[in-house]
């Protein structure tokens, strides 16, 4: 029988304590145990970035990390971006700039972009492209994703109700 270990993680502000098979990836734990299916699996080998989440504020590939390694961590997934039904400025910018088509890679892009804008509120286009280069999108050709992140950077510099 596969060994299990009990872990506790805080996801989008909510605590989850549950047994995780020691070989289970974090993304499977989030999707199956926490029921948070907004984080998507795209390659399971750390290239496509679809499964990107923020773990203690830093982006990680949740397909490359074991759930047990996340014990005690604070995790932000795409479900935690909007507040009270109001889209986060990044989500809003993606909507306005048509930065998603099928929407499957989008959660990973949003979290990668969020990390960028927290670290660098005024990125140049080249910096945005560099920061997003670990995420694959097949639908958009990236043009509108880059535009959306530029727009969100501007919007985030304006004071707003929730930061």
């Amino acid at each position, binding site marked *: *029988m*596969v060994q299990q270990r009990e872990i506790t993680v805080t996801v989008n502000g909510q605590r989850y304590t549950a047994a995780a*098979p020691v*070989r*289970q990836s974090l993304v499977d734990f989030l*999707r199956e145990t926490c029921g*948070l*299916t*907004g*984080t*998507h*699996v*795209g*390659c*399971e*080998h750390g*290239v*496509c970035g*679809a499964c990107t989440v923020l773990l203690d504020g830093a982006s990680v590939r949740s397909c490359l990390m074991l759930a047990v390694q996340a014990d005690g961590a604070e995790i932000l*997934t*795409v*479900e935690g*971006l*909007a507040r009270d039904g109001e*889209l986060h400025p990044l*989500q809003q910018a*993606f*909507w*306005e700039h*048509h930065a*998603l*088509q*099928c*929407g*499957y*890679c*989008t*959660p990973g892009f*949003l979290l990668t972009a969020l990390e960028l804008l927290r670290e660098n509120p005024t990125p140049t*286009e080249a910096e*945005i*492209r*560099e920061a*997003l*280069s*670990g*995420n*694959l*999108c*097949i*639908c*958009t*050709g*990236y*043009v*509108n*994703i*880059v535009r959306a992140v530029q727009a969100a950077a501007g919007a985030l510099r304006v004071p707003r109700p929730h930061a």
Partner: protein
Amino acid sequence: MTVTGQPSTAAPPASARDWQGLQARWMGTAVKRKEDPRLLMGQGRFLDDIRLPGMLHAAFVRSPHAHARIRRIDTAAARALPGVVGIVTGLEARQRSGSLRPLIPVPSEPPNYCLAADKVRYVGDPVAIVAAVDRATAEDAAALVEVEYEELPAVIDVEQAVEPDAPLVFEEAGSNVLWHDVFTYGDVDGAFAQADVVVSERFAIHRYASTPIECFGVIADWDPGQALLTVYTNDQRPGLTIGVVAEALGLSEAQVRLICPDIGGGFGNKRRPAYIVAVSLLAMATGRPVKYLEDRRENLTALMHACNGVMYIDAAVRRDGTVLALKIRDYADEGTNLISPAQHSLLKLGNMVNTYRIGAVRYEPYSVLTNKCPSGANRGIGKPFMCFAIERLMDRIAERLGLDPAELRFRNFIPPDQFPYETPTGAYYDSGNFPETLRRALALLDYEGLRREQARARAEGRYLGIGLSVAVEPASSNMAAYVLVTGKKTSTGVGETAKVRVEPDGTVRVAFGDVCSGQGYETAAAQLVADVLGVDLHAVHVNPWFDSFTTPWMATSGNYANKFATTDVGAILGAAQKVRDKILAIAAHLLEAPPEDLELVDGRVQVRGVPDRGKTLREIAQVAYRNLLALPPGMEPGLEATHFYANPLAKLPDEAHRVRGQLIFTNAAHICLVEVDPETAQVRVLRYGVVHDCGREINPLIVEGQVHGATAHGIGAALFEEFVYDDRGQLLTTTFMDYLKPTTCEVPPIETGHLETPSPFTPLGTKGVGEGGAIPAPACVANAVEDALRPLGIRIDRLPITPDRLFHLLRAARAGQVGLSPSSG
């Protein structure tokens, strides 16, 4: 003809507000997509998000060999693993299911079962499937299945596969050549006799695929009480798949309920009926729902690649640059494709002369089996290779005659007053203005300015190159084209069907048989229906999921061939118009006014000029569903309609084999600037411009997004993406670490411009968009790279132009041996 050249994000001019007699409030407007908020919040419902009670998880046992005989399969150790619930082997599958019906039945038609039983024919060929309580256990168990193989010689190279002594992929077929023919259109030999110059080239295209980020999958749920199989799948062509799955499993089509959830990208290759059958067999055997979802390695190894191929092309040319005729011999590497063989070749007949007034063509296609992953549909199907060959050829002709490549193209364009225009192969170009499209593309990036920049760079020892390519981008596939291969007139034309229903509260629901995989159908269909019914966009709800029990569908239903704007629109409008007529009839009765005096405005029917006299849509719907005695005498209650639409241009091939394989033609011109670093052999795309003409645009925001994505796809194909097999048929590129997709750092900002030449043959003047950029972009990039390296005499005859390949070309050029012949890879 109107050539407006409006920027895509601006509101259309007032004159464009009249869409075929409809006052358009939503159509033509760049409205934000209705589906986006749920996708942005992680609330999409994709296949892997679906959980059924008691559901098992499946894994395939796959062949490690390209070609081998299966001697023995031993499943005992796998069955003994705790958590394993069921296993189906190839032999068992053959006892319980039939051969899968192909889309294009070639004359030899080898049998095609869902699992391999006697032989494996490519690395990744499934030989058994295991169900267990979770995915990890299923994979553990799959690894415990012992398969004894006797390796056989594999045939990998497409040109070697046609040799008489080549190993046979399917002995039953008697040959690796599934289809071969020679079509002569017009006086080819006469044209070559008159030619001042004959330009002969050999071009090769590689295997690549669009690799949607969501892999292909299926959940099968067998209900023995109802004898009902429910299949959840992200299959792009449900209308085709239902019949194939039912037939293979010995069920009626009424016993198969197929549901498509949100689909995370498709691009043609998200389809594998064999997997649906295999997973269904497991569900039937275990009595529990079974889910299978590819992992990325399986997706890259075994789902579907675009055909690689080799094309020999000769052009008869006059000294002034006029191209008189083409002779083309074309080898398409089908891998182990038995579903749609010959499709890549047939579709090339639609863009064989591209945008040019070429009067005669001889086409000699070979569809060839090899021991590789099945080939199949992928954004553009065959047309990217055809465009690559002809647009590379045009550059070679220009070089030979000392003409500017743009000038050569202008000299050969079909003139704008010649539409509709029938090409020698029978393609029927509905409309367009090819010279204007190219003129705008040249202006978009300032072609003359780029040439000056290139001259300056060359003086500094830098290698800048300018690429041009032009393309027709055909849409809506007429299945009658397959008659050329099959001789059977059993599947012809193309259609779609839609249902529009006004709910009792006056809101509107729309369903149609096409399944969205990112193209914004929830928005575009709502824009159409909102305008027909005179309601707010937000009052129209378009079903995002396909469910064969509630969504109207037909065999051609599905997401392929840029079909939405060229066929689906007819179905959606037709259904909406039937409902509109009924709304007006009921309102006329209630308001005691003739229907022609009524108008639909803001969710109300009112008497024109007397806006107080009216009824809301809700009031009319209440009559239709509840207050039945208030209906006009004899009228059927209810307020819904279904409409089936067939594209009117489809017809059978004629005696001369002229064929309308696709029906409505968008066109585009691409222009790019690249720089080649002669030390690292790296190509950088510095600028990329696209001008395209897809007629009326229902939603310019969506159209522009499609252009960006398709163009990026073509850039990826030109420079990065390649499935590489070694000479024993092992696939060397099985992860995204070695099958390279372009990222934000490789795809440049894509600059766009638009023309709008409405199609006279679609209800609203719309044309296809989606495959577009993927067709001319590989040629455009290759033309630019060869242009950059012209001082060194380097020839680009195959793709992708990887640093490794370019390094060897550069080294050979420096050593004085240029013009390396391509290998077919």
